[in-house]
């Protein structure tokens, strides 16, 4: 063991070591506190991570361990650990106040394995980029879209999570409202006002709901007023906020004089979407390459 070249066994030991380290962290400092990652901490961590990845890429030829991280023998065991840990997550009910298996997203071994996947993804992406020649093949493009896309989607979604604002706003017909409630029940003042003109509820013949919607006006400080309709599945958008139809006065049904909206602000969304669209391109190229291989 640990004779070069390292094989799958060493890969599994490395991942196993991370899990033990994660357990030690869980027992000493407790679960991962994602709220601590709010801006600017997440930005600094991302910058540090990219710098570390660049340095590691520069040391590629000098340090064997870094070369090993770019092999299948490192990637496959890590993915197997991810599958197993995520199965544990799937088999246990997840709750916000749960610990260990009941809140895997804050469970150090789970988090560390996914961080390790991100590190491997980052490394192999930089490595591939540094080896690109003038002749870029579809295979190169496919590789980069798949791996960099997943890296961006995963890392930005995770680091950006603490910056997401989810608010509830209750609007009464004809009364402009700018105060919303956050998840900790604190009042947040918005940079614009929402005025409910009319709540709409339609039902099928059997009484089951067919449509929930609200005719609203969005009143901005620059005095521009936007008239729009928010449906379930059709949120409105303003200044980086997405406004969703969330609820209504259920005792009144279609006669409801109020409408409850959810407002979501996610500054990292464009980066996550960039990753998702790269992965979509990667999937398309994977499809094309599979046809060609024969």
């Amino acid at each position, binding site marked *: 063991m640990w004779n070069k070249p390292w094989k799958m066994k060493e890969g599994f030991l490395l991942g196993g070591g991370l899990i033990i380290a994660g357990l030690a962290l869980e027992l000493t400092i407790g679960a991962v506190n994602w709220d601590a990652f709010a801006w600017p901490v997440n930005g600094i961590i991302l910058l540090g991570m990219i710098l570390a990845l660049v340095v590691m890429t520069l040391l590629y030829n000098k340090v064997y361990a870094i070369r090993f991280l770019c092999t299948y023998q490192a990637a496959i065991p890590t993915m197997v650990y991810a599958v197993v840990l995520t199965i544990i997550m799937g088999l246990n009910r997840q709750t916000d106040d749960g610990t260990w298996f009941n809140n895997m997203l804050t469970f150090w071994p789970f988090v560390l394995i996914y961080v390790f996947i991100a590190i491997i993804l980052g490394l192999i992406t930089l490595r591939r980029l540094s080896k690109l020649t003038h002749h870029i093949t579809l295979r190169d493009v496919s590789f980069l879209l798949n791996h960099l896309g997943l890296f961006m989607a995963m890392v930005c979604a995770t680091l950006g999570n603490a910056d997401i604002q989810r608010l509830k706003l209750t609007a009464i017909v004809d009364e402009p409202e700018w105060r919303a409630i956050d998840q900790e029940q604190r009042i947040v003042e918005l940079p614009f006002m929402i005025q409910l003109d009319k709540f709409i509820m339609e039902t099928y013949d059997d009484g089951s709901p067919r449509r929930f919607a609200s005719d609203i006006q969005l009143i901005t400080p620059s005095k521009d007023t936007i008239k729009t309709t928010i449906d379930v*599945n059709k949120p409105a958008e303003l200044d980086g906020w997405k406004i969703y139809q969330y609820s209504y006065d259920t005792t009144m049904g279609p006669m409801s004089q109020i409408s409850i909206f959810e407002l979501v602000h996610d500054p990292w969304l464009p980066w996550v979407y960039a990753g998702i669209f790269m992965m979509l391109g990667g999937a398309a190229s994977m499809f094309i390459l599979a046809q060609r291989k024969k």
Partner: protein
Amino acid sequence: MSWEHFIYFAIASVLLWIWGAWAAWKDNRKQTYYTTIAGLLIFFSFIVMMWISLERPPLRTMGETRLWYSFFLPLAGLIIYSRWQYKWILSFSTMMSVVFICINIFKPEIHSKTLMPALQSPWFAPHVIVYMFAYALLGAATLMALYHLFSKRSAQDSMYSQMTSLDNLVYVGLAFMTFGMLFGALWAKEAWGHYWSWDPKETWAAITWFSYLVYIHYRLTPRNNPKLALVMIIISFILLQMCWWGINYLPAAMGSSVHTYNQ
């Protein structure tokens, strides 16, 4: 058009598919194509008529997704047959399809006409159809894996050449699965305000996705063991079953998933 008429379309399609599978064994390629395609057209016309009479895509209930699966299996089988000329693939795909058709005939679920607002989205149809096609391809890959694992003729050489086509099948299946998953993420952002919430269905989708990634990367490893790779395909497909319908029966997922179908 309603589920009462399903049995007539199903019988006609299945008979044609059996004919096609038999013609494939007899190396009668033309007949294979004509009969299988005719069967597919008949089956698809039922789906279209259901779509029209329901006034929504038939994708909501488990029974309706099985309908698509029964359709995509012979279609995937035919595509594989046209590329790699396996004589047995259409027999397998027809058999699998018949199983799903029988479940729909003998264990019909409540088929509702209404579509709740959360499902009224342009993402709905592509999300589910792409997933069903991925499931059909990966189902076919699983059958091939089982065939290779248990057939006597699997001498190392011939198995190795067949592994390449199995890889291709998984690549295409995984590509479609990735589309399905990411369409789901984009839809979730529009419907619920977030693209990924670790809903039990999403958790199991991630598990399945990573599991197939393990296979793909393992197959790229020099001197990999084909037998182990075949086992990975089977394990991945078992995990896929959890994602597809297993979570409906999973205590940890009950009441906490927006994807559990009660109808």
